[in-house]
């Protein structure tokens, strides 16, 4: 209890806010992508700057999907428009192309006081929401999208957590259960822990290129019904960390499953432009839903998420994103609108950026050629790096690496010698964390252990981004190979 009074003017010892008194859910929150290994990496960078001698001259941060940090250049057009919005005097500068100026003027006109520094409406600037819905219609072959169903957000993560807040309720056996893939992007597990939801794991099939099997969904939900109330199914497509791109067939099966089991579908589609493998294609959940006919399209509740952080833009720092909600109960939607107002509004520069992503230069516009060139180059480079990585990792004894069909990561399975596993236990570390820490200390490469994403018991993985420039990536892959051979030797 926090109510203790001073006795004879002497204050009782001990803090008010301790591990015991704080919200117990917070203790369960972990976010591996920025967890202890990253903190160590930051520490090593500091030491390097201060002149310490290490077996490496820089730390390569292959832990987080941050393209620009790894040297990817921003798309010129996007930054031109944003600069014009930030400092409208530049509209007089003839070094800026006319199509950039036109978009800047349009965005500024939609902002309060004609400035991107003003607050916007909580669900986002109206005309941008309209542009987003037009983009979705075009992407989905004409299936209508209503701007009132679009909520702009502070990155996709913000929107995902907002929807989860609405969905999670109940007590004991009635507590909301949320289905999420294993492996998964740890924002989900962190949010579920924070909100006190029950996490229901469904395993992706590593032997079948991380594909999703409906029978596994059924197994997971039947088991879960014994101790919670499953209400939500989350799916990341293209996948993170696995990179698998769901087939149309699979998406239909998932939708059917969601309808049968009365589940709210959350489709995280932030990597929708990052598709590399031959024969793979991005199918939006919404499109497939509507093409399945009114029996599904008028009943299944769906929220789709997108962002400006990935794809060819890589603008993580702007925190731009949106969600589209389909078939949401109107009363709940009112509550959703109220909920998003508590943080006032999403960052307006991010909203402006999103507007450009959904409204890129058209073939008849001056910036088109450069824009297409830059975009194609980014995506082609990623595709090549995806291929290179898979190829290289599969030459390492003890590595099994599925094709990187999409997204920005590779998630190879690594076999660890029994002695290494024992050593890890002695050191109080999970085996793949021990492995990754050793790699960091010896080669200066920062990865995230598979335990941070979830994996089948007895298997070990790590997630590495494919973002470093090709030349550097080759070196990284070589270093990992050499490290693994050494490591296996050491514990043989």
């Amino acid at each position, binding site marked *: 209890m*926090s*109510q*203790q*009074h001073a006795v004879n003017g002497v*204050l009782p010892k001990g803090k*008010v*806010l301790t*591990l015991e008194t*704080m*919200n*117990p859910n*917070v203790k369960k929150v972990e*976010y591996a992508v920025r*967890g202890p290994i990253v903190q160590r990496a930051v520490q090593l960078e500091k030491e390097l700057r201060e002149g310490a001698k290490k077996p490496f001259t820089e730390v390569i941060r292959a832990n987080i999907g*941050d393209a620009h*940090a790894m040297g990817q250049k921003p798309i010129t057009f996007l*930054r031109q428009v*944003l*600069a*014009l919005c930030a400092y409208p*005097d530049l509209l007089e*500068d003839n070094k800026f192309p006319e199509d950039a100026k036109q978009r800047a003027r349009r965005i500024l006109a939609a*902002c*309060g*006081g004609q*400035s*991107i*520094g*003003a*607050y*916007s*409406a*909580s*669900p986002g600037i109206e005309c941008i929401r309209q542009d987003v819905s037009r983009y979705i219609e075009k992407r989905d072959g004409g299936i209508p999208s209503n701007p009132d169903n679009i909520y702009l957000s502070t990155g996709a*993560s913000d929107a995902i957590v907002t929807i989860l*807040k609405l969905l999670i*309720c*109940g*007590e*004991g056996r*009635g507590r909301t259960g949320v289905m999420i893939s294993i492996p998964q992007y740890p924002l989900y597990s962190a949010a579920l822990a*924070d909100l*006190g939801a029950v996490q229901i794991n469904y395993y992706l099939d590593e032997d079948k290129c991380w594909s999703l099997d409906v029978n596994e969904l059924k197994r997971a939900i039947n088991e879960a019904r014994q101790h919670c109330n499953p209400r939500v199914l989350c799916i990341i497509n293209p996948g993170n960390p696995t990179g698998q791109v769901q087939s149309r067939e699979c998406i239909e099966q998932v939708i059917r499953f969601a309808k049968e089991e009365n589940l709210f579908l959350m489709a995280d589609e932030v990597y929708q432009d990052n598709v590399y493998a031959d024969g793979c294609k991005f199918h939006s959940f919404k499109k497939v839903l509507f093409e399945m006919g009114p029996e599904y399209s008028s009943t299944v509740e769906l929220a789709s998420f997108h962002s400006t952080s990935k794809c060819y833009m890589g603008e*993580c*720092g*702007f*925190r731009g994103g949106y969600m589209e909600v389909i078939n949401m109960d109107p009363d709940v939607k009112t*509550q959703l*609108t*109220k909920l998003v*107002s*508590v*943080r*006032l*509004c*999403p*960052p*307006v*520069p*991010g909203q402006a950026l999103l507007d450009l992503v959904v409204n890129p230069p058209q073939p008849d516009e001056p910036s088109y050629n450069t824009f297409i060139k830059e975009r194609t180059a980014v995506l082609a480079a990623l595709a090549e790096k995806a291929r290179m990585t898979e190829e290289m990792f599969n030459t390492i004894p003890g590595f099994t690496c599925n094709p990187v069909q999409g997204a920005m990561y590779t998630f190879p399975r690594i076999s660890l010698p029994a002695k290494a596993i024992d050593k890890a236990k002695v050191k109080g570390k999970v085996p793949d964390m021990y492995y990754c820490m050793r790699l960091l200390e010896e080669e200066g490469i920062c990865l995230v252990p598979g335990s941070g994403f979830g994996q089948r018991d007895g298997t070990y993985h790590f997630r590495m981004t494919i973002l470093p420039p090709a030349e550097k990536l080759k070196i990284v892959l070589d270093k990992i190979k050499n490290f693994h051979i050494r490591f296996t030797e050491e514990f043989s």
Partner: protein
Amino acid sequence: GELQAESLAPCPGEAQRSSTCVFVQGVKKPYTELIDVTWGDPQGAGLKPLTFARQVLAACLYPKLLNNERLPADVRQRAEGLLHECHGGSVGSYTDLPGIPQVARQISEFISRRDGGVPSDPDHILISPGSQWALQNILSVLVRGDGGGGGGGGGGVRSGVLTPQPSYSLSVMSVVGLGGVPVPYQLWEEQGWEVQVEELNRALEAAEGECDPVALYVINPGNPSGHVQRRKSIQDVIKFASEKRLFLLADEVYQDCIYKENIEFLSYKRVLAEMGPPFCDTVELASFHSASKGLLGEYVCGFRGGYVELVNMDPAVMKHVFTIFSKDNAPTPGQIALSVMRGLQSLQEDKGQTVFLLLKVHEVLNSLPGVSSHPVEGGAFAFPRIDLPPKAIQKAKDLGMEPDIFYCLRLLEDAGLFFTPGCEYGQKDGTYHVRYDTMDDLLTRLAAHHTQFMNDFS
């Protein structure tokens, strides 16, 4: 959780939407545009942004401008320095916790300068997308929503947070949203909206059995009250928090908006430090600030930059707080805004203009029949009390709405002015208030409408 707070206008900019409706319907109104003064957004109300800040931001966004000689050298230098600290030299990258290192350092230097030299540790500063976001994160660590945590075990007592009445409604909503219980303590209108310890005691006692109070939330300068706490008042609150073992949450976003002569803003941190032991080493405090408010002529609310400074927090808890914040990167443009704002000096002329405006506001308000307003000492709003005529109150009841909502609706319809009714912030039963931003053009409309309204219902 259930969000019970109803809001007349949940979205800033709703006025724009209303105005669209008005024009589409082709109804003639005695005004041609709506003035939305509900959200404390001076940029939205037409003030000109500071060129320097905007130039720096533009150069950071489009680094090709670093070679553009039309931009002054200091702008380019500043932008270069900021970009140097961004991963990959791009504002499109994520930033580490607590934010761009330079920005966290600048903030800590600013805090230390502000507090007469009291040291500030950049490692205890966390940058967030706006101060409300930071407040929610801290509340989520403090508040046990279902008394037991995780899966709703039930049987436990929910956490309580003492909140002022009147108060910034979104903060109270945040407490409710997390499953906590707001425990309102009245601010004394008769004493210019002061915080009184007897009232804090009363509120705490009333909460007994209802919830487990864990924190005390104060807003200084007050929103909507505009009151600026004096040192003694702050000390009393700190002593109360210490004695009753409450975590102190100090919302100080309006600290740059002080108008009254001979008052200076004293931060909770500074007063705490200057109280010496045992308080300075033991009282746990989180202070919140934002880039969104301030007298510098440059308002960047839309960029979403804010921060919290943690004082005397248990290091084990701090680790978990960092994990919570690590999931939410503060937008880089917002961090740049914070950096530039902190580096700029107050523009004396701007302050002078605002002080003049406020005196005018005070004069006009108190000249209106049935309106009484305390002088606005700080903040961005006025919160006058309106003694509504009985006929108006009756009419409101007939329409099934709160009397101050009725007043505000009429004001919106007839004069195109968008104020927020006092019931949204909490007020003493039987009293009515309105909150609005202290801008000048609206005073004429307000005066005219108000006189008419009072006549209609006399």
